């Protein structure tokens, strides 16, 4: 049973400090939404307000149709996985998982069945008698997850749950969490500062910066069509080149890039004469030996400053006048350009956007 969650114009002040601003978000039942932002951006405060550990200064939060701002945490019926798991060290794994049912005074038989099912779901059924400090980090993570879902919560909150795991385990747990979420069809709010986690797991990502929701979109749109420079630089790697819009033609803009080269790019509401930044992803840039005359548009001449071989791809830093452009090229038997090579970099008009 999954529920929608709606946050309406939430404000949160700590004294004079405005940590969450105009927070508006509607999460569909069964949706997996990630709060992504740098540390100190207010994403954890937003999560704490959903959980009931903080009270919003103003605004309202609805779980389904019910406003929950005045409900204490224990009456909200929300499941939560904590960053450090917060397993109860004096209880066995089974007692930990049973805890939400015990405090709700569920019948013993029903409790046992539900605990078994939850432990099965996280593949930890043979560990019920152990104590948390006898488990590895990944296993503790699974128990925390089992404890959070055992009572069929209407919504599941996860506060940087993968932060304490090593890289390999993290990859594995990502897939596990997604599997369990699909299996239970539960609404999930996931908080992280790691863009890889956000991009892989979420149906939608809310990028948060300085207490404000900057953009809410699915992974592809967020990566391909960031709304502003913060999102573009925070999610994935990007090149930002200063530019000026000359004219608007057929919805696309004719621009001058870095004051020298002509270009064509997609606009986000700019008109002729505006200054802005041309945004293009490193993997959308082609690199080739210097041609006598550069292409008509979206091409710059430069010198390879640095070529880093990364296995599946090579990462070039190319100096073009005052700008340094990052290029990522798949290693598929194409040419390799060592440092000092004179090159031309170019990109397609549909792969670049002007941002304010």
């Amino acid at each position, binding site marked *: 049973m999954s529920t929608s969650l709606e946050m309406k114009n939430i404000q949160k002040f700590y004294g004079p400090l405005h940590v969450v601003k105009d927070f508006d978000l509607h999460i569909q039942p069964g949706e997996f939404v990630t709060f992504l932002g740098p540390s100190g951006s207010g994403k954890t405060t937003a999560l704490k307000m959903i959980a*009931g550990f903080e009270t919003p200064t103003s605004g309202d939060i609805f779980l389904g149709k019910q406003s929950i701002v005045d409900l*204490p*945490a*224990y009456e909200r019926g929300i499941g*939560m996985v904590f960053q450090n798991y917060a*397993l109860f060290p004096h209880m066995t794994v089974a007692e930990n998982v049973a*805890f939400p049912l*015990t*405090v709700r005074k569920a019948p013993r038989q029903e409790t046992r069945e539900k605990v078994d099912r939850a432990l099965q779901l996280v593949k930890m059924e043979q560990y019920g008698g152990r104590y948390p400090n006898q488990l590895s980090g990944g296993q503790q993570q699974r128990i925390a997850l089992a404890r959070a879902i055992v*009572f069929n919560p209407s919504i599941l909150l996860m506060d940087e749950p993968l932060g304490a795991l090593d890289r390999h385990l993290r990859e594995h747990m990502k897939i596990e969490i997604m599997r369990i979420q699909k299996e239970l069809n539960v609404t999930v709010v996931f908080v992280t500062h790691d863009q890889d986690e956000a991009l892989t797991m979420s149906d939608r990502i809310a990028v948060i910066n300085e207490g404000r929701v900057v953009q809410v979109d699915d992974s592809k749109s967020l990566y391909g069509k960031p709304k502003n420079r913060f999102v573009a630089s925070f999610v994935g790697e990007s090149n930002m080149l200063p530019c000026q819009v000359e004219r608007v033609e057929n919805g696309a803009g004719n621009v001058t890039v870095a004051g020298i080269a002509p270009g064509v790019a997609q606009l986000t509401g700019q008109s002729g004469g505006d200054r802005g930044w041309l945004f293009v992803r490193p993997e959308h840039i082609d690199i080739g030996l210097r041609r006598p005359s550069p292409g008509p548009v979206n091409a710059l001449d430069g010198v390879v400053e640095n070529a880093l071989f990364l296995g599946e791809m090579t990462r070039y830093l190319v100096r073009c006048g005052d700008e340094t452009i990052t290029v990522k090229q798949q290693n598929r038997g194409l040419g390799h350009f060592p440092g000092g090579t004179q090159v031309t970099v170019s990109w397609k008009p549909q792969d670049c956007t002007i941002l304010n």
Partner: protein
Amino acid sequence: MNNLLENPWIRGAIVSAPLLILLVGFLAVPLSYIVWGSFEGSKFNFSHYARVFASETNLNILRYTLRTGLIVTLVSLAAGYPVAYLLTKLKSRALSVVSVFLLIPLFTAFLIRTYAWMVILGREGIINNALIWLGITKEPLTLLNTTFAVVLGMSHVFIPTAIFTMYSAMVRIDHDVARAAQILGAKPVQAFLRVYFPLTLPGVFSAGILIFISAIGFYITPALLGGPSDTMISQLIVAQMTTLLNFEHGYASSIVLLLVTIAVLFIASLFIPLEMIWSSSTVAASDEKPRLAARLFKKVKRAVDPVLSVTETTVHAATRPLLTRSAAWLWAYTIVVLVFLTAPLIVVVILSFSSSPFVVFPPPGLSLQWWEKLANATDWHRSFFFSVQLGIAAACVATIIGTMGAFWLVRTRFPFKKMLFLFALSPLMVPVVIIATSLYVFEARLHILGTFGGLVMGHVLLAVPYVIVVMAAALRNFDPSLEPAAAVHGARPLQTLRLVTLPILKPALLTAGLLAFLTSFDELLVGLFLLGRQTPTLPVKFWGDIAYQIDPLLSTASTLIVVLVTASIITVQFIRDRHNTRISQRIAE
């Protein structure tokens, strides 16, 4: 020299020798004297034990001692628990302020605190005067020399201990655990009873044991606040050794007290690791199976589950309107406790400015007459300087011996390490009255009774465990890669010690030294027995004057001592804070 130091056995022997000599020579041997003497050595005459248990009076004293110990323990734990809990939630600045209010009573001599209660509870004391003024009673009530006074005075002594011991265990419990319980559906009272409280039980238990074994060997407070029917076993021992001169009987009583203490500690060791009682930081998070306590607790929990549920529901219904996030009531309660702890000291301070020749509160007027008297009282001056001298000597010796011992106990690997650590703390386990009497007998044999050296050794013995606890904790937190780093850069072992190890340990050394000094400065019983014909130490002088007459001069002397102790605590706290911020800033950079 350096070659010799590289041999771990030789190094271990050098570092451990002073501590072992002290513990064996001044604790184990004197105690075995007492044991030996209690059955008159090779005569194996156990009649003295028979007399201890045959006399109804003695049995009553034993029973009364245990009962008072238990009541005081429970009162201190119950009063201290909420305060300790609040402390875990405080940020560093507020924590410093509140802990200064707790540290001052903690480090004010038992004698002064007890004297304050004599002033408050006396016939002309605040309580009686207030009751008469309010018209509740006509005649002053007899509050002094009652069991009530003893329990009140002793609880006042032990509440700060309870708070700090429980706090040091509680502070390591993640508050997220309680939060997790609530978001998972536990009502606040459920989260407390099922999650937080069980996790704090080991801390509560170790505080309880600490207080109980200190309380049953306590001397000053029952002697001054209790009536004839409130005699505790340590008073019996002192009376037998000093006025009745019935030594064998005194030995036998001491052994009975010692055996009770050992029995309590043995039972405690079934539930918690014993070293946790004195230094919680030494107990690493263990992977071992939960101890008997946890298993027992589980059984109890299953048995009381229905009761628990009912309690939860009623308490929840009752407290629901009180539950605010600001924890205002917790603050109110803490302030009440802090006032209870500091008010007696404030009474003493005010009294020192009294214009009356008698101990009357509130004083009829203000004057500096008592301060002038103190300024001219050469006997007080001599006592003060003698105590300072003694304290400094004892603190220096104890800090050196204790630090070396802590290095040895923390840094070297050998079997029975835990046992040896406990042995090093044993002067804290043996009731002071027994240490005092055994040293008295032992030093008389060695003909060092009544010498300055003999007195210093007695105080060193009492102070060394504190030094070891502080230094062992500091050494365990010491980054183990720093010393190899110094060596790699060319420092010889002694240079490493001088340039790297000791400077980093400076705040801990300072704390340890201060604790050792205060232990000696406040010590009465050992001083009383070992002093001989020397100038009386400040507590001994104080003790003599209280027994002789209570006048505001004692308040004046107390005030001076409280001010000095407070100043030194704040100074050390300040130096520690500065050191810590400097180090953390360096890390931040």
